[in-house]
């Protein structure tokens, strides 16, 4: 019997705001515990929440990037539960009228592109962090009240690989839009994974199991893999599955039951009376829409057409917004036919320097203008390729413009035939053995002479011209 897997993801993403969701406390990561707190995020008597407009904007931007319908009238609700991580003992969230509805992400699968639909995106506040110290536990309310948006997918994912592709695509879009850093180590992106399996041919979904709160892609993959295997084993051995919530234990490499459906919380949701509904005008939404960056998938196609670069190159470049921006700025400063050459320079030389130094393109001294000038100098054979490649690390480290360096140091390529002829004659005269080899049919010996001439010119000779001169001299 073959079993089909169904996965749905609920992904919590921390929004890139300066302050908390309902108060003006800072969101700086890594501060001393309980220093970014106030009566509001500590749930003191009488304190009231005020919704962070920036968080609303970032959620709407995400919705627009993901093709959602924006709810012009959305509301907050209270989700009631007692736990020390929630200062008010209720969480302010959006239960009935979330900010964004519908939408989806197209992922690549071995069977081609596949649309993963999004059910909705809602805005809420994060819980505080509980630290356990042996005999007691401490609550750090610095994280309490952090703006989170929860992106709820439809159960459209059929494997753990598709789940990974969805999360990667989601992360890329959100980072692209500047709504979140999606920094997994800082817990910026956490997912609940809903997994069920059913025998092939069965139309209704199997019993759903929810695995709570995982913050690494690796963990999500491993948990989904474990859970699919566990459920398949149960079904093939005639055991019933129960609807339940489980947790992933990375040390034991297994999921463990937290609570069954019978013991599920009754959250007693009701409309948050302390916050007025969020009303968004068409003009406001249109203004935000016009500020959206191009989606990576659309950018890939456009860059292929605009710069004549292969799909692979366009894909690599479009992956990170900063890199694509740099590439495009450089390519626009070069002759139009140089698109592929610019892409080669960026993907090979620049990306190598980025990976060696661990820097982001925005953090190095190289400018698109400098790179464009360097590529143009090489293309116009003012300098040769090796010289250009030698100059790049310096431009990357210290900045500056290549033309000035070339002039100051006399690095210009020697294309003067008479000067080069002299080097060729010198090389031939001092290597009679190789001349004999060449004449005996070892045509590869020509390369040796080219190398010698390059050395004599201190690397500045135009290698193509040298090749021609050497061949002509040897044939005589």
């Amino acid at each position, binding site marked *: 019997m073959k079993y089909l897997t169904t996965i749905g993801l609920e992904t919590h993403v921390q929004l890139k705001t300066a302050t908390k969701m309902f108060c003006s406390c800072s969101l700086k990561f890594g501060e001393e515990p309980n220093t970014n707190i106030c*009566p509001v995020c*500590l*749930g*003191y*008597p*009488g*304190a*009231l*929440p*005020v*919704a962070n407009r920036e968080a609303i904007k970032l959620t709407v931007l995400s919705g627009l990037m993901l093709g959602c319908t924006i709810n012009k009238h959305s509301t907050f609700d*209270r989700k*009631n539960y*007692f*736990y*020390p991580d929630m*200062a*008010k*003992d*209720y969480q302010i969230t959006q239960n009935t009228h979330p900010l964004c509805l519908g939408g989806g992400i197209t992922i690549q699968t071995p069977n081609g592109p596949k649309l993963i639909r999004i059910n909705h995106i809602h805005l809420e506040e994060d819980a505080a962090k509980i630290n356990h110290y042996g005999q007691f536990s401490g*609550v750090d309310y610095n994280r309490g009240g952090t703006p989170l948006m929860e992106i709820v997918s439809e159960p459209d994912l059929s494997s753990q690989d598709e789940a990974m592709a969805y999360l990667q695509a989601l992360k890329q879009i959100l980072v692209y839009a500047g709504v979140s850093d999606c920094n997994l180590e800082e817990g910026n992106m956490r997912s609940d994974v809903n997994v069920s399996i059913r025998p092939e041919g069965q139309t209704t979904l199997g019993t759903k199991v929810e695995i709570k709160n995982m913050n690494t892609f690796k963990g999500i993959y491993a948990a989904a893999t474990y859970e699919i295997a566990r459920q398949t084993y149960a079904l093939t051995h005639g055991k019933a599955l129960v609807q339940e919530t489980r947790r992933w234990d990375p040390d034991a490499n297994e999921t463990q039951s937290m609570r069954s459906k019978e013991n599920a919380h*009754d959250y*007693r*949701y*009701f409309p948050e*009376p*302390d*916050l*007025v509904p969020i009303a968004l005008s068409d003009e406001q939404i249109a203004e935000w829409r016009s500020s959206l960056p191009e989606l990576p998938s659309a950018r890939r196609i456009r860059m292929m057409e605009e710069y004549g670069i292969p799909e692979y190159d366009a894909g690599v470049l479009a992956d990170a917004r900063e890199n694509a921006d740099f590439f495009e700025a450089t390519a626009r400063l070069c002759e139009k036919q140089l698109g592929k050459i610019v892409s080669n320079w960026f993907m090979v030389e620049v990306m190598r320097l980025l990976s060696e130094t661990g820097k982001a393109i925005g953090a190095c001294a190289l400018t698109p203008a400098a790179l464009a000038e360097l590529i143009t100098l090489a293309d116009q054979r003012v300098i040769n390729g090796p010289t250009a490649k030698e100059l790049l690390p310096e431009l990357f480290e210290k900045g500056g413009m290549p033309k000035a360096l070339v002039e100051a140091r006399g690095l210009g390529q020697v294309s003067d035939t008479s000067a080069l002829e002299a080097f060729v004659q010198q090389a031939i005269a001092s290597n009679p053995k190789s001349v004999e080899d060449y004449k005996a049919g070892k045509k590869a010996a020509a390369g040796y002479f080219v190398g010698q001439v390059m050395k004599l010119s201190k690397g500045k000779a135009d290698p193509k011209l040298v090749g021609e001169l050497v061949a002509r001299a040897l044939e005589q």
Partner: protein
Amino acid sequence: MNIENLTICTAAEGLRKRAFSSVELTQGVLDAIQQKDGQINAYLTVDAEGALKQATAADAARFAGQDGDLLGIPIAIKDIINVEGQPCTCASKMLEGYVSPYDATVAARLRSAGAVFAGRTNMDEFAMGSSTENSAFKSTCNPHDLSRVPGGSSGGSAAAIAAGTALAALGTDTGGSIRQPASFCGCVGLKPSYGRVSRYGVTAYASSLDQVGPMTKTVEDAAILLQALAGVDAHDGTTSPAEVPDYRAALAGGLKGLRIGLPKEYFIDGTDPEVMVHIRKAIDDCAKAGAEIVDVSLPHTEYATAVYYIIATAEASANLARFDGVRYGHRTAAPESVFDLYAKSRAEGFGTEVKRRIILGTYVLSSGYYDAYYGRAQKARTLIRQDFTTAFKQCDVLLTPVAPTAAYKRGEATDDPLKMYLGDIFTVPANLGGLCALSVPCGMTHDRLPVGLQLLGPAFGEPTLLRVGAGYERLRS
């Protein structure tokens, strides 16, 4: 000095004329509390030192040329309003010993107007009750008859004014908690429109119904206090950006030409006939003074009390969840687990009525019952609101009794919560509708107990409401 007959207005006049200083005035209030409050129990705590310090500062400000209607005026504060550095117990064991780390917006506004915080007044625990007998610390007596209740939940504020131990006070009103004690004690009580006054820093009972308001000796004093309190607040998203009018300027208009509506559902059997005599007399007086009396109907009134006790308790069940013993307030000794900490701290910290309402509110929100209770109550609330919208097309204000009876005996209603709930029948609709409402004294029973009449105005209709109140007040004097 004797402060018994002073109002905000006359005290301000005395300060302006330098007939006395704020320090003398404040000392007068403190002395009155010292002398009389042992019998009345209107105050929970009095910070004499802090009050005199504020008074000294107010005197210095006045000497430096400043003036203001509240500069140097002592105001009593209901113990549910946070003032930085002062206790804010909400008359609950849960918050015994709690010191507030911040000022409520209303406290900050009074502070910047130069007012003096005279003391913190007793109340029903977390504003849940109508007699101030649900206080965890003491029950307050009605100064008109010590064997009777002062009303509630702002009973301490009303009793202090009636006893002459306060010139004026702040109360809060979720279902009548300003108006009913004002009526029982013979003072003026104003519940502003929802959104008119910030709730920030006022410990929440029912967020969609709570409002802070003035309790005073005269309508003019109520207008002065409201002027200082009203207006949009960046800390409370439910406050309205609507402009704050000059309330005092509205007082002079008189009754002539105004249409006063009498909702027939408020003139029913069951109201004490002696209360009705005074209400009828007030209606006649208004008519004689040139007001047009109109009969109107608010057909969904009968559902109001039920709707109120569903919505208020639902919101309270969430609002009071934060009292869990983790960060502040009562914490049980040696809990065995985190849930034991919650259960025991709350069992020990909350009184019976608070527990009753939390349980009720939890029930009406629970899965499977939500639609039948909370969902239906919200729909009924919309209908009640619409009733008022329709009625205010036919009249400028509505006139009704405040409560079905005058002040009752202490202990009389405590055993029967339902009976106590029904005493709110005339006051809760204003909160459900977000209206403004005013309680003004209109007579005394044979037992020398005050009777109040209630005026209801549309949301943000305070100027007309105060105009009618002041006009009626002048007829009586």
